[in-house]
Structure formats: structure tokens, C-alpha cells
């Protein structure tokens, strides 16, 4: 219905080249050393590479430190409410096939208050890319247990150590029906960029869990996967792992922390965007060029 077509460059001007400089907006309000800085830098770089028309980039987020992301990208953006970024992004993606939708948020935003939306956006295979900056803690509200905090983690809501078993993000995502599922690390810039690029180029619901240290409230959380701190960064060997096999991926997700990194799962399944368009096309073919106004008039005439 919209007259906009995908990636059509503006008629009059030559498309401007997207650079980090152009993409940079406000200086991030994150704490010095916060892992989210690296995520932002990687995102700029991948966008530089992909060169989408500037005006077709949309950044969406809920609430949290990580969810401040859209303020730091000079693109169309919306900073929504806690936990509901995905349904908002669903509304954008389905009603605007011409734009590229990116969603950013934290572990609390995505897996606690927003957990159900994640399941349903995934099963519907909405076309968008979702990056979860997982710091295993609630940053913005100053150190409460998050759904990914490991048992024993001392927070303001678990003064003697976290009691509840955390979720397993990869298992949850695999069960949800997401069609691209990967895991990366803010301190592994090259890997992170590769994963982001694959996620963005995937035609469907792509989601990346990106470990991103909260230096303020959970310093050292990811040392065990940071080689320069003596950890091991264990990347999935895709020649040995069939990324289209969700059971194999589920098995991989069993590994104890820090677990594996890389693409756990990727399949092609029609997006809801495409399926709804198919229905629209069928209905419109049936109506054989009748104008919307005439469609309405006929419908009302049936009530005579």
C-alpha cells in the first residue's frame, strides 16, 4: 500500500556515502569501559560496509543502559518502553517493507519483561535484526539480578547470591522458532562484526546475544571468555556443526559457561512479511484493480 519501494535511492540526490562520522550522534552516556561502546562501534562499521540508504535505517529499543543505543546512532530511531521494543519493531517491519529495522536491548529488557514478545516475534519470523547486549545484570537500575545472572551472583535483590536458575538464552531462542540465532562478545570485535553482518543479511528474524560487560555492576563477568584475561573464546566450527539442525544447536547450548560462540542456527523459512504480502496480492488480484474506495463502497452496499 505504501508507495515506498525497498532501497530506492532518493530521486534527486546521489546517495551519500555512509560513514561512521555520519552515523555518529550524541556521545554515549555509558560508563567509561562499558562493553556497549564496542557494540556501537561494530554496528557503525557493519553499516559502513552495507551502505544502506541513510534514511532507510531504523533503530528501535526498549529501556535499559543498552537500550539507549538509538540516541547514539544518527538514523531514524525510537526509544520505546521497557520490554516492548520487539512488538514495536514488528509494527514498523510489517508496515514498512522498505526500511531496515534494528532492535537493541539488554538481557532484562529482552528475557525478563520482554520474554514473551521474543517468542512470538521469533515464531512469526518477522524480518528484523535484534541484538541483545547481555551483561548478566540490570545496569540502568543499578544492580539487580537479571534473568541471565548466574546463580550465586550477589546483587541488590539477591544479597546472599542469586537463587533462581538463569535462563539459557540459546535454548530459549531455539525453542522460539527464530531463524537466525548467534552468540558473540563485545570484546571480540572481529567476530562480533562478522556475526552482525550475517544476522543483518539474513531474511527473517535474526537475533544475536552479545556478551557485553557492565564494568559498573558486574565487572569481570566475562573474563572466562576473554582471551586477554585468560579466558577461552570458543567459536563454533561450522564445518562440524549443521546450523540447520536445531537439536544439534540445543545440544551445543548445553555447554557450561562461557559456552560456545558463533552461529548456532540458521534456516530459511518464509517471513510473516512475505506471507502477509502473499495474502494481500491474492486479495488484490481477486479485486482486479478496483480502487480501495470502491472496495469500501461495495462492502457498505451489502448492508442495504
Amino acid at each position, binding site marked *: *500500500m*505504501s*508507495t*515506498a519501494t525497498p532501497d530506492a535511492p*532518493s530521486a534527486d*540526490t546521489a546517495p551519500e556515502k555512509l560513514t561512521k562520522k*555520519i552515523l555518529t*550522534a*550524541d556521545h554515549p552516556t555509558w560508563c567509561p569501559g562499558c562493553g556497549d561502546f564496542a557494540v556501537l562501534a561494530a554496528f557503525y562499521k557493519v553499516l559502513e560496509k552495507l551502505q544502506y540508504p*541513510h*534514511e*532507510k535505517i*531504523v533503530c*528501535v529499543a526498549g529501556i535499559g543502559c543498552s537500550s539507549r543505543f*538509538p*540516541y547514539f546512532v*544518527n*538514523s*531514524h*530511531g*525510537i*526509544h*520505546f*518502553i521497557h520490554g*516492548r521494543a520487539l*512488538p*514495536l*519493531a*514488528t*509494527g*514498523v*517491519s*510489517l*508496515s*514498512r517493507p*522498505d*526500511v531496515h529495522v534494528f532492535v537493541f536491548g539488554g538481557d532484562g529488557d529482552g528475557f525478563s519483561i520482554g520474554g*514473551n*514478545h521474543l*517468542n*512470538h516475534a521469533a515464531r512469526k519470523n518477522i524480518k528484523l535484526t535484534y541484538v541483545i547486549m547481555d551483561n548478566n545484570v540490570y545496569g540502568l537500575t543499578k544492580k539487580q539480578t537479571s534473568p541471565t545472572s548466574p546463580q550465586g551472583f550477589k546483587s541488590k535483590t539477591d544479597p546472599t547470591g542469586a537463587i533462581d536458575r538463569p535462563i539459557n538464552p540459546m535454548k530459549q531462542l531455539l525453542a522460539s522458532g527464530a531463524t537466525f540465532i548467534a552468540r558473540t562478545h563485545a570484546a571480540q570485535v572481529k567476530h562480533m562484526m562478522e556475526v552482525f553482518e550475517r544476522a543483518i543479511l539474513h531474511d527473517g528474524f535474526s537475533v544475536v546475544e552479545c556478551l557485553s560487560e557492565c564494568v559498573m555492576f558486574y565487572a569481570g563477568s566475562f573474563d572466562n571468555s576473554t582471551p586477554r584475561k585468560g579466558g577461552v573464546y570458543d567459536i563454533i566450527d561450522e564445518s562440524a556443526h549443521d546450523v540447520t539442525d536445531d537439536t544439534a544447536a540445543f545440544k551445543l547450548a548445553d555447554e557450561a559457561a562461557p559456552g560456545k560462540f558463533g552461529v548456532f542456527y540458521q534456516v530459511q523459512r518464509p517471513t510473516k512479511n512475505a506471507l*502477509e504480502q502473499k*495474502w*494481500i496480492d*491474492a*486479495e*488484490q488480484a481477486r*479485486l482486479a484493480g478496483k480502487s*480501495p*474506495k470502491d*472496495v*469500501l*463502497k461495495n*462492502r*457498505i*452496499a451489502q*448492508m*442495504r
Partner: protein
Amino acid sequence: MSTPPTSTPTSLRNAVIRLAGNSQDGIQSIGGFLARLAGRTQKDVMTYMTIPSTISGGPSIFQLHLGSGEVRSPGDESDVLVAFYQHSYDNHLSALRDGGICIYDPDEVKELKSERGIVHVPVPFTSATIEAIGGSSRDRGKNMFVLGLLCAMYQLDREKLSGIVARQFGKKSEDILRNAMLAFDAGYAYPVGDIGSFNFAEGEHLDENRISTDGNTLMTMGLLCAGVRYGSAYPITPWSPIMELLRTELPKYGGIYVQAEDELAAVAMTIGAAFAGHLAVTGSSGPGLSLKAEALSYASMAELPLIVINVQRGGPSTGLPTSVEQSDLLQAIYGSHGDAPRIVLGPQDVEDCFYIALEAGRLAREYSCPVIILSDQALSSRIEAFTEPDVDKHWVEPPLDITPRPADFKPYPLDQITRHAPPGTKMEGGKYPIVTGLEHDEWGHPSSSPVIHQKMTDKRRRKLEELARALPNPEIYGEAEGDLLIVGWGCTCGPIRETVDRLRSEGHRVSSTQIRHLHPLPAGIGDMFSRFRKVLVVEMNDSGVYGYGQLAMLLRAKLADPRIESFCKTDGLAFRIREVVAAAEKTLASA
């Protein structure tokens, strides 16, 4: 094939027929057929029905008010009661007027009361239908038998009526249609004895282009005409039919309606579509509106245009999901945290559902603000006949505007109403806008400056002040001055106007007004009230800890006028005219 009744018909201007049985008996469809017929034969009609809230069914009624003149309520009392079962008889005989006719099924109704001159007419629907169709179809054709019976009794246009029936059943199978017609004809031919027959007097000439339908259907047509192409919702009674119709219709217009996982997701998706530059709609009933409260506060803060429909039902909580009530008004206005300005509208009858949807679309866009439409269970399901809306005249093109914006573009200018630049819009200055729920400066950047917060709060309020000034006063029914002004909103319009007619005919100086713009109220409303000695607000919600209902509260606060009184009820039933008349008389009589 069957003989028409022969006695000379009595001429009537109005008839109220109540059908009482179980929900499985297809009473709703008899009612629907008659209502549709009325729309096609220059009669006015209003219907009223009850639905059991469990699926397995249970007692149900359909009441139909047919008239040669304007019909404004489903009728206080019925002229004819058709009782399918003993419980139908027992529970509804009191709704029959003195001397009314009770047609009952002697196979089912065994104990009769003789009272108030009521004429009892036994008609064995069950056995007669079995006889007509054949043994196996018990229960199924009874409704068609009764339809035939009523067609004969009221001398209705048999040909048109069978046409309507044929169109409906023809969709199913020939067998079904044949059986339906057999039952219909049997009912038509059934000799009811000496109660005679009636026909309708020639009424005022009603408009040529009349349609008949219910409020939910017409609201959906209004949304389509207003340019709505996207949105999302979650099912709930009595909202669901709007979402089902949007889901079915929108693909024809190139749009998409999404069934979300819950109401929180639904409003978020709808806000997403609004942010994306569309006019989008979400909706629900009571509990679902509560779930949208946080996101609506966002829409107020971010100043996004959006239509939200709330088809009210009995509350609080799950309450009475299939009864009518008007108890979500204060929530619609004040139900979100913070000072979250939004616009609230209420349609006054089925026809108005179309125009209120258009108005909602217009205001949402003009004021870049969420607009809540408060419909209700009665409007949602009752059928009325009215002039067909002129689509050519009202048609609105969907709004998506992604033309480039100049370098000085700001999403939240302090000196103008917000106009967003949706995704896809090229920003000539190179600076892209951000939409946010944090307090923000003119560019959408978060600010905790005291000055900014004060100014932005003023900005968001000021647009409603502007709107209040721009709104005309609501129409007065009756004279513009007098002893009593009855004020209502929503579905109570009919009974209130009937009350005015009745009291004026008795010499009282009574007028009424139905408020469609509930928030903000038109600025001139105080002047309007000042020309009456008393004001009585009539609404279907609780009379409150301090003795007044929800609209009355708004009006009393705005005008600080102790002459504003309140009449409320919460029994889940539409107002009877006599209830409103009694309340008005009491107010008139008091000092």
C-alpha cells in the same frame, strides 16, 4: 403453497417483539433477518440482545423495535413475546405490556399465568417444525418457523424477507436452504387464531439510501474510510468483531492487521505502525485497555497519532463481559501514569460509529495524539437502520509522507504541534530524528532540565486546550433553554431523547444533549448549561462514593457547578425510558 392470513390487519406505527429462548435456537438470526428487512422496507429499527457469557450457551433474548417513524430505543416493554421454553416464559412475561400477546410453544411451556390481560397464543414451534422439515432436524428450523409466523402476523414483505434468508442460507448448502424455507412457509401459514394481524402505517418518508448493521461493523467501515491500514489487537468480547473484520478486509486495501500475543504487544505494534507514518488502530475491551495504559502514556509523551477503540462492557475486572456499561470513561482520560494528554470520543448510536471513527482519525493526525473511542457492548451488537454514509465525501487517503524534510526540522517544536518525520524520510540537514518517551528537547533528545519539562508539559497540554476551543458545543435536542438539560454520552442517546419527547409532551421544559467529545470537553459547554435551571447527567456506571457518575464528575470539576446532578445505574441493561423519565421528574421536582 401456503395461504396468507385472511383477517383485516390492524394498522400500527411501532411494534416491540421479544424473542426469548436459548442461544442455540438461532434467535439472533431471526432478529437479524427482521432488522435487515426493516432497513430495506423504509422502517426504522433498533435491536437489543443478551448473550450468555459461556460458550455452551444458555438463555438468550433478542428484542426488536420496528417502527414507521424514528426508533430510538429497543423498547421498554414488548408488544409480543415469543417464548421458546418455560424459563423463557417465566423470566420474560414481566417484560410484556398489559394486554400484550404471548406466543409460546406448548411442547415446552406448560405452566401459564393469567395476568394483566395478556393474550396467550399456543404455537407448537417444535412439533410443527419437525412436521414441516422431517423428523431429524429437531431444534434447527424452529427459528425459521417463528420468522414465518411473524412475517404473516405483521404483514411484512414476504418476498424481500425470503430473499434475505435465501442469500444467507444459500452460502451454506441447498439442503439447508430448502429446510429453512420449508420451516418458514410452515410458520407463515400457521393459523394463529383470533389475534389477527397488523401492518405498519405509512411513516415519514425515510431517506432512500438506508443500510442496517451493528456498531462494530460500521465502526470498522469508518476506520477504513479514515485511512486506517495497519494495527494490531488481541481478541476480547465485545471488541473482537472489529479486529476480525479488519483482519479480513485490510488485505483488500493493501494493509495488514496483526493478531498479537497480548494487548501490550498489540498497542506496541500499533505504535510501531504509527511511528512508521501510518494511521493505525488498536482496540480492546476493559481489561485490555488496562493493559495498554503504559504504552498509551508513551504515545502521549512521544506525541504519536493513534486510534484506540475500547468497546466497554460490565466491570470491574472480567465483570460482566457480555453486558453493557459505561464505566471506563475516567480510565480512558486518566488511566495512564503522569499527565498524559489524549483525546476521548464517544459515538452516540450505530450510525455515529462511522463518523466518530473519521473524527478520531482527523484529530489523531491534526493533534499528533492518541485518540480513544469509547464504544460499548450495546452499540457493538445492536442493529440499527440509517442513511448510508457517503464514502466519496468522507474518503481519506492513507497519510504516509516520506518527502524529504528541511534542515531546520525538529520533531518536537515548542511553538507548533508535533509533526513526525517517519522512517524513510530523508533529512536534508543530515540529522535524523528520534522519538522518545523520556522528557526531551525539541530534537527528541533526553533532557532533565526543569525548564524543558515545564515547557514540554505545557506544549502537550496546550494542544488539547486549542482543540477544546475549536470544538463546537454538542447539539441540543429540544430548546436551547429550559428547566432541565439531560446530558448523556454513548448508547444512551435514544432513551434520553424519548424521555425528552415524553416530558415535553407533558409540558415540561426539558432538553437533552449527547456529548461526543468527552475529552477535552468543548470550551463553551458551561454557557450551554447556564441556560437551564438544572442539569442531570445520565450514565451507566456507578454512582460513586460521592454520589455522581463519571461524566458527571468531569462536568462538576470543570464547572464547579452544584446544579449538576447525576443519575446512574449498573445493572448491565440498557436504560428504559421510564427509568430516565422518573429520574428527570425527580430532578425537576426538587428545589
